[in-house]
């Protein structure tokens, strides 16, 4: 097996995982809720992108590609806001919020996937290739269109998101919430309003991840489950609430996944991944970059 191939696939996987994990991580640290409806957001965004792709029959493929990506991001953000309105807004100030938020998002994802199943049926849908059908060769490395596109667009969106978080007023509010929600509330940052921004942002990240992953997999009501579980594990491994930790963990787990599928076979990916995560968490209980005493007090 070729090392360059392994590294390339590790990089692609890491970029998509990073996208997923950062969404979960930001949600947890700023609004204090584990968003288990992330998989639902993912599936809804996939269906949104598919619906737009169905509408664009005789259009230039570049425009179709842009429209599909935009539709995925837009539906994802919309689904994120919906999740926020249904689960975060009603109970964020009630007793026992963390557990209730977890259960509410799980209930929402149970309902949502069944509604998707009801509307669209169990048959899987495919997205058109967004990035065209080309491949480039750099010596031994063969870069296919979907991989290159996934790599470039996820890095681009991540960079845009992180810059936005660093430099904009809203980003400042979100970071203030991540540091200390009570303090943020005292200086006049609306918890509900910021919650909606955060969920829209993370929903958009999930939407892009959905479009990227559905280049290789399919859109189905349950397609969000595996990405969500991977995203949650990566976020957990990196330390909930830490962006840099999530990126490091995404790199480690992406490498692990490509190594395992290259040397052991696809069915052992989850097993080695969980063994790795458990070992990391046994050594560092709050993840790679998580601090034990800085953990968010729900």
């Amino acid at each position: 097996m070729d090392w360059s191939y392994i590294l390339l696939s590790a990089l692609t996987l890491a970029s998509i995982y990073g996208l997923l994990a950062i969404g979960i991580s930001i949600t947890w640290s700023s609004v204090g809720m584990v968003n288990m409806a992330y998989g639902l957001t993912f599936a809804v965004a996939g269906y949104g992108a598919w619906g737009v792709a169905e509408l664009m029959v005789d259009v230039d493929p570049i425009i179709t590609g842009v429209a599909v990506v935009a539709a995925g991001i837009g539906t994802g953000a919309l689904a994120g806001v919906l999740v926020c309105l249904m689960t975060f807004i009603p109970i964020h100030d009630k007793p026992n919020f963390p557990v209730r938020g977890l259960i509410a998002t799980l209930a929402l994802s149970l309902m949502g996937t069944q509604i998707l199943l009801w509307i669209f049926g169990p048959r899987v849908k495919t997205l058109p290739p967004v990035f065209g059908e080309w491949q480039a060769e750099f010596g031994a490395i063969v870069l296919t269109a979907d991989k290159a596109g996934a790599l470039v667009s996820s890095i681009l969106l991540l960079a845009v998101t992180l810059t936005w978080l660093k430099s904009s007023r809203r980003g400042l509010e979100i970071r203030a919430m991540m540091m200390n929600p009570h303090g943020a509330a005292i200086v006049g940052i609306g918890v509900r309003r910021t919650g909606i921004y955060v969920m829209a942002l993370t929903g958009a990240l999930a939407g892009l991840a959905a479009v990227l992953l559905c280049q290789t997999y399919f859109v189905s009501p349950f397609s969000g489950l595996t990405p969500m579980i991977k995203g949650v594990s990566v976020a957990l491994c990196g330390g909930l609430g830490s962006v840099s930790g999530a990126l490091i963990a995404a790199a480690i787990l992406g490498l692990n996944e490509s190594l395992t599928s290259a040397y052991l076979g696809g069915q052992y990916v989850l097993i080695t991944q969980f063994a790795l995560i458990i070992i990391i968490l046994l050594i560092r209980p709050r993840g790679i970059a998580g601090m034990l005493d800085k953990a968010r007090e729900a």
Partner: protein
Amino acid sequence: MFDKVWKSAAWKNPQDVWSSAGARSKAALHPVGRLRWYYKWPAHSSNLWRLRYPFTRRNVLRLRGVYNPKSLRAEKTIVDRRPVYWVLGLAALAAIAPFVESSTLLAAGAIFGIYAAINLCWMLIVGTAGIFSLASPAVVGAAAYGSAYLSIHYGLPWWALPFVGSGFGLIFGTLIALPATRLDGFYYALLTLGINELCRVYVVQSKLFGSATGGLYGADSYFPESWSENHQLLLGFYACMLLMIGALFLYRFVNGTRLGRILRAAPEKKEAFAEATGINYRAARIRVFIISSIALGFIGGFYAAHFRGASPSLFSFDVVLLMLAMIVIGGLGRAEGAVVGTLIVIFLEKYFLEWGPMRLILIGFIMMMTVLFLRNGLFGTKLQFRAWRNKKKSEFRSTRSEKGGEMLPEEATETADKDQIYFRRFDKMQRDYLKGLIDDDVIEEHRRRPLGQHSEQLERLLVYFRRAGQVDKYAITMTKPFKEYRIVALSGQRGVAPRLVDDKIYTSENEAYHAVFLRRVQDLLES
């Protein structure tokens, strides 16, 4: 002077206060108190004969024996009626089963028994141990697969499957308990969420566990082949009920013994306190986790013997969600919550099969509403309602501007002499009336002649003042005979001397009497 007061405009008919047309107290008299109604069973004395679990000193029923304070009869009260409801409910389920015609319902009943048992063990982990694990279905599935595999390939008989399953449960439970020693709360929940998916993906792809046939079937079963289908269903139903009762006893056993009490002393966010008092709560949590995992493994083995095998759907995310719905709808941390929640969800899911995805949406909706509006599921509604009612009551009390001299509810319930509650109201109305009687003429009349015959108004005031209690009642004391008089306040206690009220010295007895009267009038007007 006498005539002047008698005919003064200040005279009011004292009867008006009490007449229906008169100015009554506007403050409503609400029934107060926290009296709860209990049926009183006859008893022989206040020493009760109690039913105990064999070989222990634990009571089956919590009873209280008292003599009725009015009739002096011995009475027995069942303080905690839940065991009675349990027995009645389970007996009703067992009695109805033979008359159920529908085989769907009977099969659903059997599934209810199995799932209720799983949920009870899960509740031990989530509620008692406080470890938010989502991997309990995975333990059941692993044990079911393991024991079904052994039965198919090595011919294990059906009665051995649950015990073999317990072994698998122990191994698997220990493995997934390992991270729980270090992680807490959500970190563990998120980690265990993935374990189900791991098992499902492994089982679906593994040839060893029947990836081709969609499950592992052909294990030995406890159903006799010669029985009719209906009888087999009935047998399955009763076997599953027995399993559930076993799980109930395990739940009671863990919660009622030292282990459960240790864990109740170390709830979430109070671990540091428990640790400071010498409780090793981590070890206790892991012990409960492993006990429950063994029980879950037993149930897994039973599952394999009941369904003649195992299928990957055991690990599916939707099943985990449904089981979570069961324990959430009933209420976390309660056995009755687990069983009733399971009953509701299984009934909706297995009986209305023709509704398709609609029934799962309905279950999700119920779960969502439960979480959004109830603090702790269906069985927490009673407490939540009471808290809400108390909040409303106190809000109502604080908005009221006029006070009627009544006691606060808390005070009223604690007062032994309930006549006091009504006496205060009466006193308030009387004081309001008497305040209207006071004017310059009455005071002038008293100044002239403190003793002797008075007008009606003055006499009513004096009667009210004289009737007051001894505590802090004003009196006069003679410091020098016929020369110096001073005002004192009585202590109201035998042997405790009266205290001097001020430095003023009065030269005559009548002057001192009038000074006391003025003080009392002032107190009345200020009250």
